[in-house]
């Protein structure tokens, strides 16, 4: 399995995501924001960081990068011939996905108006996605969270629809770090191929370098993608 990781100007966790793919047993493929070619990868990770400085709105400028034209086209709703390219947007990548309208809602400044970095407990609520099929339903994991604009918002109808369709992938436990509506940490599209997640699974793939009590809790996001199947 070849998993591509896009580097935008201002991406920070791109090398970490490439490393996580390698640790999971996949073939990491660096992708460049300025290329439309995504080198035949089987899945794409949009990594964390501050693409274009995030000066306008997080992810707003990255959305228009040439590589996103291809990603948006291939990741769109499933067709007869294609189930849709699996895409995982982590943190800034999640913001790029909402700005691209591949996922609903938006991410706004943390309620406390401060950047927050901490070890965050989550519950995995949807496992029928390309990125979480390796977890058990309601598994609790601890992975790092670090964001300044991580509050997920959408209007009530959208939030209800997300709940109704089972598109909530992960929720914050033990305290909402950023004011996210309904404690949402991650969501998916209807088919489960596109997932956006605020916390950082790629930073919990090696015991020594992740959260003290979490170790490698994030690894299954990447091994899930290698399964290449959606177990419902």
């Amino acid at each position: 399995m070849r998993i591509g990781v896009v580097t935008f100007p201002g991406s920070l966790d791109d090398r970490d995501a490439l490393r996580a793919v390698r640790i999971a047993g996949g073939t990491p493929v660096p992708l460049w924001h300025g290329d439309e070619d995504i080198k035949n990868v089987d899945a794409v990770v949009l990594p964390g960081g501050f693409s274009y400085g995030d000066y306008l709105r997080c992810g707003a400028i990255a959305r228009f990068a040439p590589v996103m034209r291809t990603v948006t086209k291939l990741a769109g709703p499933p067709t007869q011939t294609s189930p849709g390219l699996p895409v995982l947007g982590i943190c800034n990548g999640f913001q790029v996905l909402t700005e691209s309208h591949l996922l609903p809602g938006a991410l706004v400044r943390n309620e406390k108006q401060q950047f927050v970095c901490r070890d965050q407990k989550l519950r995995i609520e949807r496992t029928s996605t390309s990125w979480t099929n390796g977890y058990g339903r309601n598994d609790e994991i601890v992975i790092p969270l670090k964001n300044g604009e991580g509050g997920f918002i959408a209007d009530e109808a959208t939030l209800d629809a997300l709940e109704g369709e089972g598109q909530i992938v992960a929720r914050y436990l033990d305290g909402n770090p950023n004011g996210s509506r309904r404690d949402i940490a991650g969501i998916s599209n209807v088919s489960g191929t596109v997932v956006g997640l605020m916390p950082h699974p790629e930073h919990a793939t090696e015991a020594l370098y992740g959260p003290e009590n979490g170790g490698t809790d994030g690894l299954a996001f990447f091994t899930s993608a290698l399964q290449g199947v959606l177990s419902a």
Partner: protein
Amino acid sequence: MGRVVIDVMPKPEILDPQGKAVVGALARLGFAEFAGARQGKRFELEVEGEVDQAVLDRAREAAQTLLSNPVIEDVVAVRAASNQE
């Protein structure tokens, strides 16, 4: 040289954490009369020459594609900057 002003505000039905923080801070500083606040963005774009309708149309297009996110924001004004501005 002309200047276009574009105002973008969070949609009224969307929670605005920055606005909320502003109200809180205002109250702590003794500005309790301001019971609500919302925080948006103001852009100023420069063009060669005058700001005519064609320029405003283009600016509106830029406002809607790039400068605002229609999911959470409204473009509340696109206009030529007045002289005092």
